[in-house]
C-alpha cells in the first residue's frame, strides 16, 4: 500500500494513497501501521480522504493497529467520505476511533 507521510510536531499524518482497503491489502495495511508504531510514532492520523471503500478486513487491520499502539498512543482518522464513515457508524467503530474532518483539525486536537 502507498502512503504519503508528513510529520507535524509529534503527530504523524499518513495519507492513504489507495481507494480501497479490502481483504487483499489488509495485511499490508496493518503491517504499515504497526511499523509506524514500532518506529516510535505515538500519535498517528490516517488521512482517508482518497479512500472510497473499506471492508471488514480493513476495519480489522485498523483495530489491530490501534491495539498495537497501547494505552499511550493515539490512532485517529480524518477525511472519511460518507461511504467510509457509514461503515464506521454501522460497526460502531466511530466510538472507538476519533474521527476528524481534516488533517488540520486532527493535528490541532491531538497536539
Amino acid at each position, binding site marked *: 500500500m502507498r502512503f504519503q507521510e508528513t510529520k507535524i510536531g509529534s503527530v504523524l499524518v499518513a495519507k492513504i494513497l489507495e481507494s480501497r482497503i479490502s*481483504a*487483499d491489502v489488509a495485511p499490508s495495511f496493518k503491517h504499515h501501521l504497526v511499523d509506524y508504531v514500532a518506529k516510535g510514532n505515538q500519535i498517528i492520523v490516517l488521512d482517508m480522504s482518497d479512500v472510497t471503500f473499506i471492508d471488514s478486513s480493513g476495519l480489522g487491520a485498523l483495530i489491530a493497529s490501534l491495539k498495537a499502539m497501547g494505552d499511550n498512543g493515539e490512532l485517529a482518522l480524518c477525511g472519511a467520505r460518507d461511504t467510509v464513515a457509514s461503515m464506521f457508524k454501522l460497526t460502531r467503530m466511530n466510538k*472507538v476511533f476519533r474521527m476528524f474532518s481534516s488533517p488540520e483539525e486532527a493535528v490541532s486536537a491531538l497536539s
Partner: protein
Amino acid sequence: MRRVQLVIDSELADVSLVAVAVNGICVHSGFDHIGASQIELCTAEAITNAIRHAYHGQRGLTVSVVVSVYTNHIQVDVCDNGKPMSSDQIERFVGGTEVAEVGRVNLASIPEGGRGLQIMRDLMDTVAYIREGDVNRLQMTKKFPIIGVD
C-alpha cells in the same frame, strides 16, 4: 427480470472487480450511491467469506456472482463449491451475533474479525444461506428506494 453472472477465480485481489461491477449495476438500476456502496460492500464480504472459509484461501477455484434485477428489488447470489457452513456458523448466521458495547474502555475485547456476516445482515433486507448439492449459495436482496416519499 434482468440477470448477469460474473465469475472470478478465488483470488482476494479479484474481489473488487466484481464488487465494483455490482456497484455500477446498482446505480444503473436506481440505487443512490450510498445504497449501491452498501450492496457493493456486502457482495465483497460474501465473496471474501467464500474464498477464506469455503475454499480456505485455495486458489484456482471459482466464485460465481449472479445479480438479478427485479421490478422492486435487486438480488445478489454468491456461489462457491467449497466447504459448507457448519451448524455453528449457520446458527450464528441465522441468529446474528450479540453486539457488545464498544469503546476505548474495552478495546482489548473488540474482535479484529468476524464482522462480515453481521454487516450483510444489517445492510441488506434479506440474507439467506442455501446449500444445493455441492454449491454454497449466499443470497441477498435489497429493495429499491421509493422515490418521492419523505
